[in-house]
């Protein structure tokens, strides 16, 4: 039996139905985040049906702001988005990408953080039904995960939003580290290397000096 025909999938489709029934007017009324919350509630239910082996993996020490589900989502997203092995780029394992994401999460205002958590759960769990994968994002193979991102980048507003947010967290967390710059020949800080003099405060305007 293929995953698309499984009882779990049938149940997941049933539980996700509230999202598909949203009319445009209701979508506007509840807003993007409200809709995401509704969908995530449905997705959260079928997450119970679709447990993942990664759920048993403990969260790394030092992670303070990411929940376990978010941690595993980003860990998988990093592998999919930044397959640096065999390329000229700095190996992703040598860059504290997850730690940076965790730090950035901690800086978000509380209401944004809460809404984002809802959206991330949706992204992970919706793979069960979206694209007929029959499994969560964290369990997709590499090509399926790439396809999933591509499909969401062309999807509806919520999908485009979450696709963007996850990519932006991962890529920003990687590219902000100076060790990633030499392979792309970005110079980074230059003032000290160039021996630039510091001009200090500008002179007073002419009128003040009169």
């Amino acid at each position: 039996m293929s995953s698309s025909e499984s009882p779990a999938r049938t149940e997941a489709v049933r539980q996700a139905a509230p999202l598909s029934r949203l009319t445009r007017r209701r979508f506007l009324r509840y807003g993007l985040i409200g809709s995401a919350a509704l969908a995530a509630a449905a997705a959260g239910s079928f997450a119970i049906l679709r447990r993942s082996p990664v759920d048993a993996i403990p969260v790394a020490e030092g992670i303070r702001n990411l929940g376990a589900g978010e941690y595993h989502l980003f860990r998988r997203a990093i592998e999919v988005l930044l397959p640096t092995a065999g390329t000229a780029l700095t190996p992703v394992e040598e860059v504290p990408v997850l730690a940076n994401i965790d730090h950035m999460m901690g800086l978000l205002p509380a209401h944004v953080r809460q809404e984002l958590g809802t959206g991330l759960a949706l992204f992970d769990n919706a793979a069960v039904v979206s694209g007929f994968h029959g499994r969560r994002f964290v369990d997709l193979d590499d090509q399926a995960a790439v396809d999933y991102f591509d499909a969401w980048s062309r999807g509806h507003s919520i999908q485009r939003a979450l696709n963007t947010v996850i990519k932006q967290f991962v890529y920003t967390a990687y590219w902000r580290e100076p060790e990633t710059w030499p392979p792309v020949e970005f110079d980074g800080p230059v003032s000290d290397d160039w021996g630039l003099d510091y001009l200090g405060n500008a002179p007073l305007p002419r009128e003040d000096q009169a």
Partner: protein
Amino acid sequence: MSRRRRRINMPRQGVPVTTARDVAQDPSRGRRFNIKTEVVVVGSGAAGSVVAHELARAGHEVLVLEAGRYYPSSQFTEHLGDTINEVYKDQASQLNSTADVLFVEGACIGGSTVIGACVMHRPPNSLLEGWSERHGLDQMTPEKLAPLYDEIGEEQFVHLNEAHEINATAHKVIQGCEHMGFRWRPVTRNVRRCALTGHCLAGCKPDRKMSALVTHLPWAVGYGAELYADTHVTRVRIENNRATGVDAVVRDPDTGDTVAEMRVDAQVVVSAGGAIQTPLLLQRSQAPDFSGELGRNLALQPFTQVLAEFPEELYGFRGALVGVQVDEFLESDGFLFYSALAEPEQLMAQGDQGVGADHINFMLRYKHLAGLNAFSIDDGRGSVSWDGGVNDGRQIIRWNPSRKEFNRIKQSASLAARIFFSAGAKRVYMPTYQRLEVDSVFDLDKTMDEVDYGLRGMYTFRSNSFSPQGTCRMGSERSRAVVNPNGELFDVAGLFVADASLFPEPMAAAPHWTVQVLAKHVARRIEARRSSLFI
């Protein structure tokens, strides 16, 4: 009443600032303290710094309160990530209510002038004439404002970019414009002996950028002005239709914990926190709003960044960040284009940069890229509102493009792509939420047709705003405007607005220069009325 100027005692480097740490370590202040001054200025950026300098020079006691931290140039690292963490508002995650438009704003002593790209644009006369005629602003004619533009221009070392300040990205834009027959010119910037580090967005470490950190703030301090960082003004106190001061909270910038509560008694309050923060402050203060326009008419001047890949290596991220502008369409369509390509991290906010191997290949071609920022005028239909209590509420920015605005953004991005194709680009990356690459100018229209307006234009173009404006518009009629031609609220004596909130209509040009001109205008109107405003 006449006053003598105080003795100048201007620091050579940095600015003396009282921070949350200073307050916490000073037992004499306690958890609540009062300050009495003549003028309190809320915000220390482009507008607040100019007002502080003007009024301190005129002999007034001036106190400047800044919600952000003090991050002096001696601590700059030329690392965008560090800077975003320290001085960008909400760590560069200030978004509209649908979370698809980013509002980039500085939250530090010096405000957005610290992280701006130095672009100073003097608007066309037609804009000021329109403001003057349609809003009864007799003092806003091009002729009357010209001396103020000149003054600011001199104070800020504004100059036309010289040849060495035009980098490879800019040269590609020039090349494209020449082929297309579009008018271009070097950008005017407020920088003194630009060191060409390309790190404008991370603050200018060698102090070449004429931000408020090295100009109007130290000058104001030289005349005795005092600065507080980490100080969030919660409300303006208004009694009997007169501003009497502000209430503020001093917060630890790292933890957000309250260090102390501050009460400032002042004869004049000037709000200069920008077009997002100023209306929020006035709303929290329950300032009278007879016109109903407070917080409305928000214009974004949304911009997108089109990236182009060229066969040759450009290293377009080196040199002065912004080299040239394309102003062919400024008055006809409200489009303005600036050449720019910044750090790798910054690219991630401009478009969908691919997945996996596709992303890696894209970034390995970074040195082949050029960027063109496409600004398009919007119609000022957005709003800013404060939701909840003074201390536990939150801001809501509402803006989504109308179909007309969406089409303008699309058209400006398409024009930017055409300029690059004319310069020989082999691929153009469109600034959209979906991955869109175009390999030939002949495919451009067909590809752009894939970007559909959809639901309120949400999640279509990756729009950013550096220049929100118009939320406390100035005018002569109390029924249509929030503040009068002096910058004073119609129904609250002694409460002034001096920032981009004042703009009565959206402008297409970069607003920094005009903001400083209006701040100077408001400060001088305050000084002109000193006998009625000050005891």
